[in-house]
């Protein structure tokens, strides 16, 4: 599993990456009450804001970690946004993206590097 500076986790399966947010991010957000997911088969560019997350406190977003195509979204979250707080690294994945260049994943943080990042 790899991690971004925006507190996303990335799980690779060939050229498809599953994306979610870390327990640290979920805790910072507070109780999630609304999730808006990207459309299937959308082409997205790295940095695009493609998911909206609203908690009782504020609105936030998830950006595309790399260029690619959205191949699956987790509709469960739309009906049950609280899952993001309950199981952020499991059932509460947000989307799967098919990337053009899986090797670009090497640039993201390892779990240890991410732990250092959030302890700063």
């Amino acid at each position, binding site marked *: 599993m790899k991690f971004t500076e925006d507190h996303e986790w990335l799980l690779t399966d060939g050229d498809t990456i599953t994306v979610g947010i870390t327990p640290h991010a979920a805790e910072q957000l507070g*109780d999630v009450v609304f999730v*808006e997911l990207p459309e299937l088969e959308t082409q997205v560019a790295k940095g695009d804001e493609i998911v909206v997350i609203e908690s*009782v406190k504020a*609105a936030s977003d998830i950006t595309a970690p790399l260029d690619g195509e959205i191949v699956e979204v987790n509709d469960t979250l739309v009906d049950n946004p609280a899952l993001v707080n309950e199981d952020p690294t499991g059932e509460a994945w947000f989307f799967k993206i098919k990337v053009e260049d899986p090797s670009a994943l090497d640039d993201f943080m390892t779990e240890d590097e991410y732990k250092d990042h959030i302890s700063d």
Partner: protein
Amino acid sequence: MDGVCNPKALPLAALHEALGAKFVPFAGWSMPVQYSLGVMGEHKWTRENAGLFDVSHMGQVMLPADTAAALEALVPVDVIGLAEGRQRYGFFTTDTGGVLDDLMIARVPDGLFLVVNAACRDADIAHLRAHIDGVEEITGRALLALQGPKAESALSSLVPAVSDMRFMDSQRHIWNGAELWISRSGYTGEDGFEVSVPEDVAEDFARALLADDHVEPIGLGARDSLRLEAGLPLYGQEMSEDISPIEAGQAWAITKVRRAGGDRAGSFPGADTILGQIAHGPARRRAGLLPEGRAPMRTGVEIFDSTDATTPIGIVTSGGFGPTLGAPMALALIDANTAPDAPLWGEVRGKRLPVSQTTLPFTPNGYKRSPK
């Protein structure tokens, strides 16, 4: 520049820290925004049990007993007729009919006790001093609020006399040798109390309340969602120098004796505008909105009366998710000509999402208006 950028610590800061609070800067103070239950949990706890809020950032002011008429010249409410032991909600108005701040006014044995908003505290005191002699800013007292259906049982175990108080009573009672200034009021829509307590016993008093299994500490986050569900205005959002109390839906607070035809009609700043709005209706009005989907509509969201209108008819002044309501909710300031049942749309991230108008409060209040 020290002290300008650094928010001030509450007298009970160490207790909040020990209770696991997260802090945010607010109106110049470092305030607990949430504890371990989180905003949603704290909100629901307060509606079902009792929540303890530290609101010591608010300003506490004492005026001499003979200043009721002078205070009436600044607020459109009946101060002269306020009975001892009673409290009333009011606001300082501007010459143009806006609002400088809202406040609570209590008639106590030795004067008038006011509680004003933290962000307006210095300006309010300067405003009072410009018109009234003997204005005393109270220091050395914390202000705590205990709110929720279990508030009476928790507080009465320490101060039995509070069980006989009704909504908006203001009384003084002794606890452990210290004088508590207690009112039966709050900012959550629930029954409850606000207690001014000397700082040197404030932590003991707070801990004595928290020792009750039904009392949990509650932060600013839930305070905001609770007051919003209760339809209560927040100064600076629902009401301001540019939004009159009539537009903000607070005409109820303007006492009959200060209205047209009353014995002491007018004679407060902006009276012509405000009484004119009562008589003829304001140009804008407050609306309670229920978004149809799950997306919250927050402050600043523009409201339209059709999906293709180019000009908004209003704007959300406060919005979020109502934990007890189980749905998003918003207060908006809209064109007063809008029919109360007209379907409306809020524009969120470029999309027009349907909202319906509703009556306020969003959730029923639990005020205790008569003694048991």
